[in-house]
C-alpha cells in the first residue's frame, strides 16, 4: 500500500523539479491524446515546441512569443504577489479590460492631436483603470470582510459589459459605418504602442514585463514589504507579531496586481490589438493564473512559464494548420499542464512511501 507522508520541510528539489516533470508528463499524455486522434504524436509535440523556436519561420514566431508572453508575465507577476500573501485576485481579466478602456479612452480623447505626452498619459490611465477595478474588491474586503475571490471574479463580467458598451457607444469609431469598435490606435501615431524595433516584437508592454520581473524580484528579496508579503502567506500569526497591517497589505497586493493587469491591457490595446472591440479580451487574465503557479510564484519562474505558455499557444496554432489538430485538443493539452503541475506539486510537501500494513 502507498501512503503519503507529510514532509517536515517542503522539498526544495521537488519544488524546482515539478514544473519540469509536469511539462514532461504533459508531453507524454498529450502525445497519447494526439495519437488517439490519429496524428503522429512525436511530430505533433515537435511542432508545438520546436517549430516556433527553431522552425523555418522562427524569425516570425520568436518575436510573437514576446507579444503573446508579455501580457501573461505582466499580469502573473502582479497576481503572484497577492497569491504569496494568500490574497486571491481572480479578476485580472476584468482589470485588464478596464486598463485597456481607460488607456484607449485617454488616447482617443486627444485624437487627432499629435503630441509626445499622449502615450505616457495613456500608460498612467491604463494602470489607473486596472488599479481602480482591483481596489473595489480590496476595499470591500477590508471594510466588510467580503471574499475577494468572488468579488474580483464577478467584476470581470461587469468589465465585459462595460467593454461591450464602450465599443458600441462611447469609444465607437465615428468613421466605422456603425460597426462596433474604436478607432484603430495603430493608425494614430501618438497613441500607438509600436514595436521599438520593427519585426522584433519588442513593444513597451514587453519592456514593462521585464521591468516588472526585476521589480518583483527585488521587492520580494530585498524589501521589507516583500518580506511581509511572504511572511503573511507562510506564517500569518508570525506576520501579525511582526506588525504587518493586513488591510494595507490587501490594498497593496490587489492594487498592484490590478495596475499591472491594467497596464497589460493598455499596452495590448494600443499595440498588437489596436482597437477596443467587444471581443478584445481573450483570456490573458485567467491564463496568467496558470502562468503564476507554473512559475512557482517566483518572478523568474513566471518569466519562463509565460514563455512556455506562449509557446504552446503559438505552437498549437501551427499544429492546427499543419497537422489539422482540432483547437480543443490544444486546449486540453494546455489544461493538462496545470493539472499535472498541481498533481506533482503534492511531492513538494509529501513523500510517497510504501507502507507495510500493520495489524490494527
Amino acid at each position, binding site marked *: 500500500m502507498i501512503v503519503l507522508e507529510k514532509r517536515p520541510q517542503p522539498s526544495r528539489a521537488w519544488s524546482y523539479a515539478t514544473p519540469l516533470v509536469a511539462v514532461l508528463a504533459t508531453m507524454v499524455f498529450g502525445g497519447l491524446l494526439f495519437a488517439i486522434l490519429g496524428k503522429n504524436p512525436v511530430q505533433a509535440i515537435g511542432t508545438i515546441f520546436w517549430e516556433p523556436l527553431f522552425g523555418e*519561420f522562427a*524569425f*516570425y*514566431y*520568436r*518575436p*510573437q512569443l514576446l*507579444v*503573446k508572453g508579455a501580457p501573461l508575465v505582466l499580469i502573473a507577476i502582479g497576481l503572484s504577489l497577492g497569491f504569496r500573501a494568500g490574497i486571491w485576485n481572480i479578476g485580472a481579466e476584468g482589470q485588464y479590460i478596464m486598463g485597456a478602456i481607460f488607456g484607449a479612452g485617454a488616447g482617443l480623447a486627444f485624437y487627432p492631436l499629435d503630441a509626445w505626452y499622449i502615450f505616457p498619459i495613456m500608460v498612467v490611465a491604463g494602470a489607473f483603470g486596472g488599479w481602480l477595478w482591483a481596489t473595489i474588491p480590496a476595499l470591500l474586503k477590508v471594510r466588510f470582510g467580503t471574499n475577494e475571490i468572488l468579488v474580483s471574479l464577478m467584476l470581470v463580467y461587469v468589465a*465585459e459589459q462595460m467593454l*461591450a*458598451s464602450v465599443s*458600441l*457607444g462611447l469609444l465607437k469609431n465615428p468613421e466605422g*459605418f*456603425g*460597426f*462596433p*469598435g474604436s478607432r*484603430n490606435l*495603430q493608425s494614430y501615431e501618438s497613441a500607438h504602442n509600436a514595436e521599438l*524595433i*520593427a*519585426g*522584433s516584437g*519588442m513593444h513597451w508592454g514587453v519592456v514593462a514585463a521585464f521591468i516588472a520581473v526585476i521589480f518583483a524580484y527585488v521587492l520580494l528579496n530585498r524589501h521589507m514589504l516583500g518580506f511581509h508579503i511572504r511572511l503573511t502567506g507562510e506564517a500569518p500569526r508570525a506576520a501579525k507579531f511582526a506588525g504587518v497591517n493586513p488591510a494595507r497589505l490587501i490594498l497593496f497586493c490587489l492594487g498592484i496586481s490590478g495596475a499591472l493587469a491594467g497596464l497589460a491591457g493598455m499596452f*495590448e490595446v494600443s499595440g*498588437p*490589438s*489596436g*482597437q477596443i*472591440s*467587444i*471581443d*478584445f479580451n*481573450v483570456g490573458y487574465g485567467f491564463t496568467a493564473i496558470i502562468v503564476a503557479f507554473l512559475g512557482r510564484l517566483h518572478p523568474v519562474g513566471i518569466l519562463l512559464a509565460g514563455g512556455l505558455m506562449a509557446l504552446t*499557444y*503559438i505552437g498549437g*496554432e*501551427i499544429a*492546427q*494548420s*499543419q497537422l*489539422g489538430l*482540432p*483547437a*480543443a485538443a490544444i486546449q486540453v493539452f494546455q489544461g493538462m499542464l496545470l493539472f499535472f503541475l498541481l498533481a506533482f506539486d503534492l511531492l513538494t510537501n509529501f513523500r510517497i512511501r510504501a507502507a507495510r500494513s500493520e495489524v490494527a
Partner: protein
Amino acid sequence: MKFKSLLTTAAIALGLATGAVAQDKTKVGFVYVGPVGDGGWTYEHNKGRLAIEEEFGDKVETVFVESVPEGPDAERVMTQMALEGADLIFTTSFGYMDPTINVAKKFPNVKFEHATGYKMADNVSVYSARFYEGRAVQGHIAGKMTESNIIGYIGSYPIPEVIRGINSAYIHAKKANPDVQFKIVWAYTWFDPAKEADAASVLIEQGADVILQHTDSTAPQAAAQEAGNVITFGQASDMSEYAPKPRVSSIIDNWGPYYIARTRAVMDGTWTSSNTWDGIGPGMVEIGEISDAVPADIKEEALALKAALADGSYHAFTGPLKKQDGSDWLAEGEVADDGTLAGMNFYVEGLEGDIPQ
C-alpha cells in the same frame, strides 16, 4: 537575441515567403472564429472549404485554424498561413477586418477574402451574404405561426448585419400579423451554447412561441424542443436534426460556389479585389426545407416571397417604412440603398427597446 540580425533575417525570409507562392498546388487557408463543429456559421464555411477540395482535388491544398480570437491572434494565424505559402486566405469573421488588412500589407502576393467587413485593398476582397432576405421569409412564417403574438429574437451583437436581420424579420412578421410583438435579447456572443440556451429560455418564459436566432449554436433549438410548443429556425446551417419541429425552416449560408469561384480565379490569375454581397438569387443564401409543421398555405406564401426576393421583383426593404422614432425612411415603393443597409444602426417603426449603445 540580436535585433538587427533578427530584422535582416525577417526581411529576407519575408521576401522568400512571398516568392514561395510559385508552386504547383494552390494553397487556400481559412481562419475560423468558432469550432468547425459549431453546427452553424463556422460549420458552413468549413463546408465551403470542403467544396473547394472536392472541386479541385489534388490541385489544391486547404488548411484551417479554428476558434481563433479576433485581434492579434488572428493576425498571427494569417501571417503563419501566408508564410507557409498560402495563395488565398479566407478570414471568416467581422472582427478579423483590421488584422486582415495588416497582414495583407505585408504579403502583397497573397490574396485575402474577408467576410462581412468593409475595408478593402488591392489584395483584399470583401464578401457577405444578404441574410436579411432569408429573414424576410422567416419573419413571414413567424408572423403567421405565432399564437401568443410574441416572437423572441436572440441577437448576437448590435452590429448592422444583425440589426438588418431584426428589421427585415419584423417588417415581414408585421405584414403577416399586425399584432405581432418582438422581444430581443442580446447574447453578446456568436457561439456560446450555454448563453444561447439561457436567452431562449428567458424569451420562452416571456411568452414567445417563436424563437429567431442570430447566434450559431443549436442550443436555442434544444431549449425550444424542451419547452414544447415553440418553433425555431436554423441559423447559418440547416440544423435539420431539429426538424420538423421545433425547427420549421432555416437560413443556410452557402459559401461553396463563391469559394470555388474565387479559388479558380486565383488559379487562372484573374483574381481581382471585389466587393460581393449576394442573396437568395445567386444562391449564397438558401432557405432550408419548410417542414410539415407549417400549414401548406403559409408554406406557399413563404415560397412565393422567396421567389420574389430571388428574381429581384421584390426587395425586403421596400417603402413605405419609417424609423423607430417615427421619422420617414423610405417613401412608398422606394427600396433601401446598399449603403444604408450596410451601416444600418436603427430599428424600423414598431420595434420596441433601444439598440444597445
